């Protein structure tokens, strides 16, 4: 029988590979700065600023998506809200980017707002799908036990949401990275990865290496964080 215990590293090789994966992006950035003759601090700060913007947008999107999913996943409210969410997610967000940039300028708010409305939909729909997959028996058990209010949210709806939250995050952040760079370029932010790519738009080598570096970072985050989480959360729902 499986005991409940936290085993993060099965073998020493696993630990070594994990540390190696964590250091690769940093080594790559140093190499990149050296080969492209860019100040290292500038490159690191571009990556860091963009990463923090995405993280901020993602955090807000997760909280909003969860609240919307829990509030509207079933009953009459779902019949009204789900078609609205569906239309909103198809909304051509880039069409309002110039307007957002006009109102807020090339600021963090513009980028974060834009990222939120990009990232939120896959997370929202995946959580809704997770909640809808809850067995009727579980709902009835929660009901007769008397789970309600905060206890119901924390002990029933939250754990039920997690598989959808993880799946939605993987898709949402994939779209988020894409939108991040585009938004920073279009809005004209003076810092971040968008500004970096814009500044070196004439240089094929730097652009290619930059894109490669970004993909490497995304791959490593997925490998170390999202894929293990995906497996674990879905295992947790196995009966």
């Amino acid at each position, binding site marked *: *029988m*499986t*005991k*409940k*215990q936290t085993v993060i590293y099965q073998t020493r090789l696993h630990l070594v590979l994990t540390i190696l994966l964590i250091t690769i992006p940093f080594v790559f950035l140093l190499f990149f700065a050296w080969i492209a003759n860019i100040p290292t601090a500038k490159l690191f700060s571009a990556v860091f600023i963009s990463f923090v913007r995405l993280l901020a947008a993602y955090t807000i999107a997760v909280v909003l998506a969860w609240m919307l999913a829990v509030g509207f996943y079933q009953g009459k409210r779902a019949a009204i809200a789900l078609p609205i969410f569906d239309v909103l997610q198809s909304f051509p967000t880039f069409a309002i980017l110039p307007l957002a940039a006009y109102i807020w300028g090339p600021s963090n708010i513009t980028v974060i707002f834009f990222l939120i409305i990009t990232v939120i939909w896959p997370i929202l729909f995946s959580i809704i799908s997770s909640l809808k997959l809850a*067995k009727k*028996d*579980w709902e*009835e*058990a*929660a*009901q*007769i*036990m*008397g*789970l*309600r209010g905060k*206890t119901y949210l924390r*002990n*029933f709806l939250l*754990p*039920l949401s*997690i598989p959808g939250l993880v799946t939605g995050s993987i898709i949402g952040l994939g779209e988020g990275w894409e939108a991040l760079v585009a938004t920073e370029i279009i809005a004209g932010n003076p810092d971040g990865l968008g500004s970096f790519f814009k500044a070196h738009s004439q240089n094929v080598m730097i652009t290619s290496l930059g894109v490669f570096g970004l993909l490497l970072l995304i791959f490593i985050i997925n490998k170390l964080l999202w894929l293990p989480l995906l497996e674990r959360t879905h*295992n*947790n*729902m*196995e*009966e």
Partner: protein
Amino acid sequence: MNKVALSLSHVNKVFKTDGQKTVSVIHDVSLDILSGEIFVFVGPSGSGKSTLLRIMSGIEKSFTGEVKRSKDVSPHDMSFVFQQFAIMPWLTVFENVELALIARGVKQGERGHTVMRELKQLGLEKSKDSYPRDLSGGMRQRVGIARALVTNPKIIFMDEPFSELDSFTAASLRKELLDIWQERRPTIVMVTHVVEEALELADKIAVLTPRPARVEKVVVDNLPRPRDTRSKNFYQLEDELYQLIKP
């Protein structure tokens, strides 16, 4: 004489089908269930037994008629054992049982020993950190029963609790349930389609008709406990029930 724990008066339930036609599933059920007795509903599959149980337990709220609980039985004094266990797959055995206490607002410091007491009673203490996916059907239903018992309920509703288990496991769990009942004397309201199971456990057996469910007859089973399932009286009562049940 025991007082009435649960009283049903002219309970009716209709379902609306997709074509907006109404189908009657429960028709005019009236009966009293006494405190501390094991009351079993038997009837053919699809007769509406589970729906009736959900109405009595308060899970199903859409019906006509009246279900009255004794004044000393609050909704917190009731629990439910499900046919397919309905234990949460993301929680360990311990956490599943503890959840019933969390729902009742029992403080963290008081929960541990109460949960462990029930786990010991049902032979689950060694599996307390296991997840449901690692347990056999019998063990899962033990968790379901432990969760139902941990709040020390006055009424326990059981929806075909042994039908997903092999016959050996079901027999041993029935015996354990009887031991617990004799020790604590909760009211047990159970539905089953297995006549022998009803005869082994029940004080009273309500025979339901095929859909819509009506009470054909309430048979009193006062065979002495522990019941000899191979005795002449047992077989006589079994014959009587089989004649009453219409497929």
